[in-house]
């Protein structure tokens, strides 16, 4: 009976950044977070975050009164100390290579680096909090019959190669991070899963959803901590 291997990234997850005066200087009149110093999300399984669909919310907790915020967040009188503003995700927030960028509301930047309605000009000691959700390519399921090979990439890294979802003759890969020296244990576990007589269903190679890490019992001793997913591009 067919088994289905399931991979899900660590979601939901959140991370906060306290803005420094150096940040404020570096980000004058450009997208905040886009140069010199970054708001980089780390520790959520190893894969880059490259899609805005993975962002559930971005909030800014103001350290002090600030009038340089978008008109949609105030009646032109700004925010007060401690006020929490939820940013509009469509216009003023982007993420690439796990680096969060927020357009300022004011300054001399170009139209692409400024949004008077939905931007937010950060000040020192403001706290930016990003919360991540399931989004583009954060979870996937493949039949065991589509598994083409499992190869070691490093002592703590193993690659699962599957027939591509989208195109024949290509492969989609999951590069799984695990404890050192666990390659043979992983291939043994996958072989046991494939040969098992238990009823069909999904087998959680790694499931970082719903606030906890769930791994199939056969793989539980492998120290799996995350994965990088590389499917054939485009939809």
């Amino acid at each position, binding site marked *: *009976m*067919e088994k*289905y291997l*399931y991979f*899900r990234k660590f979601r939901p997850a959140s991370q906060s950044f306290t803005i420094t005066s150096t940040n404020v200087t570096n980000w004058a009149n450009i997208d905040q977070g886009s140069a010199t110093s970054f708001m980089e999300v780390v520790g959520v399984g190893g894969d880059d975050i490259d*899609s805005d*669909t993975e962002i*559930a919310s971005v909030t800014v907790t103001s350290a002090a009164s600030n009038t340089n915020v978008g008109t949609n967040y105030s009646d032109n009188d700004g925010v007060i100390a401690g006020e929490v503003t939820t940013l509009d995700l469509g216009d003023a927030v982007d993420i690439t290579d796990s680096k969060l960028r927020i357009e300022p509301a004011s300054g001399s930047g170009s139209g692409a680096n400024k949004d008077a309605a939905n931007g937010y000009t950060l000040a020192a000691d403001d706290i930016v909090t990003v919360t991540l*959700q*399931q*989004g*583009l*390519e*954060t*979870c*996937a*399921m*493949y*039949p065991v*019959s*589509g598994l083409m090979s499992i190869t070691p990439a490093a002592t703590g890294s193993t690659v699962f190669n*599957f*027939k*591509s*979802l*989208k*195109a*024949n*003759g290509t492969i*989609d890969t999951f590069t799984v991070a695990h404890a050192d020296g666990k390659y043979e244990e992983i291939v043994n576990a996958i072989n046991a899963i494939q040969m098992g007589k238990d*009823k*069909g*269903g*999904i087998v959680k190679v790694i*499931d970082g*959803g*719903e606030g906890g890490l769930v791994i199939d019992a056969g793989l539980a001793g492998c120290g799996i901590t995350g994965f990088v997913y590389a*499917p054939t591009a485009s*939809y």
Partner: protein
Amino acid sequence: MENENYLFFADGGDNDQANDAIMFPASRFHGAVSTDNTTLEFFFKDAAGANSNDDISCTITADKHEAVCNEFASLATRTKTNTNNFTVISDLNGGLPSNEGPISAVGITAITAMTITTA
């Protein structure tokens, strides 16, 4: 047709136009992937053998990707011995005539819309 599960998808049309509905043998399933917080896409090897595969893009309840995958896996692997009916993964038709055939289940209820694209 061999003795295996056949998986049925139908959007909200009346099963009278191309890509209103489709059925695949379970063995042609290539996998599924999330494309946003409310979308899960299922891919099947194209019936015509095209280089690209057929895609069923399903709108689902937010964050229910794992639940939908789990239910899909259960449906796709259930024993069909001594039955004639195929397996409804999702049938979003609401007003088909009663003589339409063996479609007697709505399938996975977390799927609320779909777009069927064949290569």
